[in-house]
């Protein structure tokens, strides 16, 4: 499909909320087959940027193209067939089972030819996120980490060419963090454009093709991890001295800590 070859293209995006300028002049491209990690300090505007690109927050300047068409030209349903979004909010109002929650990810495809994929898509997503054992459990009875994985499984089951994830690794243990980021890589190798907000810079460096640093509402740097995540750059953005070493050719960021005796 030629149209989907375009992934996400954000040009000169600015967002103002209640008269406050949250984001200004952001240019960001996520091509199909690529994982772009969005990093930056708390309150830098990462989640707002994600919300603007996913269509939740109206942009006041610039433009966002999804799969080659302006964001505003999509109906809700058409957009849901192009992009899936994981928010940080893992609440559920009623005690649906894990299986039911994951199958909600298939709802945009109801009454289309891709309806036939439902069972396979749900099963694969649940295995990828290691939640297939939980299928009959009630979502509301799960731990925070389990909820996060189930929500991600729902997003995977949606099977869209564009995937946006807001801190998918936030409440996960070491192993599940790696599982999630591997699943993100698998998506990209299958041709998806993936934009993921992460706090762990080393995790971003290890799995992303490119890293974009957002600070104070602007895009400070974007490029391959080795070029962007330098000690000088990270220190200045976070206001904290850091050491950057290399592990398997990827940067590992560690704050400079005073040795305690």
């Amino acid at each position: 499909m030629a149209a989907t070859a375009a992934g996400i293209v954000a040009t000169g995006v600015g967002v103002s909320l209640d008269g406050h300028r949250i984001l200004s002049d952001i240019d960001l491209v996520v091509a199909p087959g690529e994982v772009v990690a969005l990093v930056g300090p708390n309150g830098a505007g990462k989640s707002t940027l994600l919300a603007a690109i996913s269509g939740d927050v109206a942009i006041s300047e610039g433009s966002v193209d999804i799969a080659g068409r302006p964001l505003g030209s999509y109906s809700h349903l058409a957009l849901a067939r192009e992009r899936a979004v994981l928010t940080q909010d893992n609440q559920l109002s009623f005690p649906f089972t894990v299986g039911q929650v994951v199958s909600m990810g298939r709802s945009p495809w109801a009454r289309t030819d891709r309806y036939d994929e439902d069972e396979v898509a749900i099963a694969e997503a649940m295995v990828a996120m290691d939640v297939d054992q939980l299928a009959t459990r009630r979502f509301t009875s799960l731990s925070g980490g389990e909820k996060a994985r189930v929500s991600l499984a729902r997003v995977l089951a949606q099977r869209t060419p564009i995937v946006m994830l807001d801190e998918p690794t936030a409440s996960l243990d070491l192993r599940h963090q790696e599982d999630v980021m591997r699943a993100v890589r698998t998506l990209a190798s299958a041709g998806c454009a993936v934009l993921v907000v992460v706090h762990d810079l080393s995790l971003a460096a290890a799995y992303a093709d490119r890293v974009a640093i957002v600070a104070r509402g602007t895009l400070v740097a974007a490029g391959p991890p080795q070029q962007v995540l330098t000690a000088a750059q990270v220190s200045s953005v976070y206001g904290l001295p850091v050491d950057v070493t290399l592990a398997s050719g990827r940067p590992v960021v560690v704050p400079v800590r005073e040795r305690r005796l």
Partner: protein
Amino acid sequence: MSRLARGLTLSLILAVVVVAGITLSSVIGQLAISPAQVAGSLLRAVGIDNGWAPDDPIIESTLWVVRFPRIVMGLVVGAALAVAGAVMQAIFGNPLAEPGVVGVSSGAALGAALGIVLASAGLSAFTSSWATAGLAFAGGLGATLLVYAVSRSNGRTEVVTLLLTGIAINAFAGAGLAFLLFAGSAASREQIVFWQLGSLNGSRWQEVAIVAVVSVAGLVVALVIAGRLNLLALGERSARHLGVNVEALRIGSIILVALLTGVAVAFCGIIAFVGLVVPHIIRMAIGPSHRPLILASAIGGGALLVYADLLARTVVAGADLPIGMLTSLIGGPFFFFLLYRQRKRSGGWA
């Protein structure tokens, strides 16, 4: 038990309960009528002549003028209220939202009372019954919109805010009703009191038909939007990401709730807690998925009111208790229990 087995068991139980309720309500009363006579009369009505059918015109008219319209009214009003409750809980994302509790019913009753007072001021009987229904709908709609606007923030509704909003609306509507009682004539006073307490007494086929049409149409709409209501449980943002036009769904659902509650209140007065108790029990039995939930709630709500009405007209010999009083007697403690449980689970009132 698997979900399907639970669903089938529940359907079977509900079917038995409904049929038993209808039979009991037809048979029991000041004039005892045998089940065979009821069956015979029903068969004759659909054109099958049989030996069971009663020859006594008093029995015939008791069944067809008094009991049957009342039973059908109970079924359709119960269905309307239970479906309204289930839909309201879905859009508020809160199992404690209920038309009676949050003030939609009293808003509708205020509208209905206004209609009654205006009618006694000189409208014809036909216009006045429609004016009453229309004003009940308008009152219910206004109350729903108000609760919705006040009690939601960031796409969620907190229990405290919801209940406090309900208190405020109930207080305002109560004051409005008191004023209309004060201002109205003796006859309209009596009617307003009737509205406040709720009753199926004196249901006529024309009224039953109006409520039935609205209830069935509302049920169909609710079943159509059920899948989208499921997605709303994920929160408004996630529902939107899955292709739901949340704003349209919200407005549509509010109108649906107001319509169902309004039509029930307009003809039968305030019958509270049906929309709270019934969906809650169904949810415990078969889970929260909205299509089966709404369908089973409609049937369960109908059954509940048929039994409640049977109680209302038989528990005190020779008197017809207000049905709204009975449902509140049962529903009030149940609501306490739900509050207590929710509080224990979430550790506070948030």
